[in-house]
């Protein structure tokens, strides 16, 4: 059945294929357009460089009026990523706008990797190291990068 959310997700998918932003990719799962798998490549010149981080995106019928639930499947060490992979990012919560699409979501998460917000921590250890011990922070992140090759 075609609903506004499903119709819109087909459009998002088409756009992502025709005009893919650098360093991100995503596609619906085989039998359900409401659940997508995505990959974000670690941005250059950040400790996340070379990592391939997997995510799932779950949409409801209220998309695009409400944001989807986005979660890292790959293990992450980042100030704004919870232990369960959930992401603390304003545009996925109280600053969501219906003008965002899947491309915009993935590129926003990509830039969150480059620019964490340690004042709004989802992982307090990562936030503390990011602020006080950047070397150790980068070491822990690099371990995630290596882990992401195996996943």
């Amino acid at each position, binding site marked *: 059945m075609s609903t506004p959310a499903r119709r819109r997700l087909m*459009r998002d998918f088409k756009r992502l294929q025709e005009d893919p932003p650098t360093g991100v990719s995503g596609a619906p799962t085989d039998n359900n357009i409401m659940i997508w798998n995505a990959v974000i490549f670690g941005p250059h010149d950040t400790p996340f460089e070379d990592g391939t981080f997997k995510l799932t995106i779950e949409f409801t019928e209220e998309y695009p*009026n409400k944001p989807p639930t986005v979660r890292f499947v790959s293990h992450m060490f980042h100030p704004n990523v919870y*232990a369960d992979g959930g992401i603390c990012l*304003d545009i996925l*919560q109280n600053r969501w*706008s*219906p*003008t965002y699409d899947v491309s915009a979501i993935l590129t926003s998460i990509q830039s969150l990797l480059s620019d964490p917000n340690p004042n709004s921590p989802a992982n307090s250890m990562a936030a503390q190291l990011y602020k006080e011990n950047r070397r150790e922070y980068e070491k822990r992140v690099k371990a995630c990068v290596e882990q992401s090759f195996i996943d």
Partner: protein
Amino acid sequence: MGDEFESDTVVASGNQDELIMQQQRQIEREISESTALVGDLEPIASLNNEYSNDVVYLEKIKDLASKYKYMRRTRPDGNCFFRAFTYAKLERLLDNKIDFANFYKIVEGSKHALVELGFPQFTVEDFYDTFIDVLKRLGDIKTATDAKKELHTLFNEQGYSDYMVVYLRLLTSGQLQRDQDFYSCFIEGERTVADFCHQEVEPMYKESDHIHIMAACAAMNTGVRVVYMDRGTSKINIEHDLPEGTQPSVHLLYRPGHYDILYL
């Protein structure tokens, strides 16, 4: 970029954002089960039931009933102004083919104007297409009575209804940004007009203030009269026309936090 909650007590394993959102969804479900997106016409006196022991309000309902015959309730979901305004505007246009055609032309030019302001074409188009589709469907219906029935049906289908709301929100945001020199003095704090639009105008379920209404009126080229009903001690309701001095074609009832539609 993170969210705005500043909390030192976040539990590392618990995802608090999700808990908050879950609770929000529960509240929204309860509201949506009890109120239609846009209700049927009701006599003004139907308000009496809500305020049976409230002398101030009963007096004001009497005043309201001396000026208006009916009201139409909208769902209190934060979109009520935008939904009420669009519904009332279109309903009114269905009585006059020429006004309808003129309005259609305004809407037709609006997508391009938004893209020129920097809105993402791809997503704006999605909402624009639905808005135009609804106008076409209504315009193709021969009698105003049948067209109004279709309007009511479409506005109670969440998919259509919410897309109409989003597009008016985008038009309102566009208007604010186009005339930002004027609107910036109405915005409190350090926010730019663009920030204000991203945070308070474009997202669904964000409630409307005076500034939203002014910009929406300008974007839709429409005058609106807002009748304020509150606990103030005066016996009559205060009326406010926007923009000032215009003949209003849409009449809205405002009770703190909520807008419904009024009929003369």
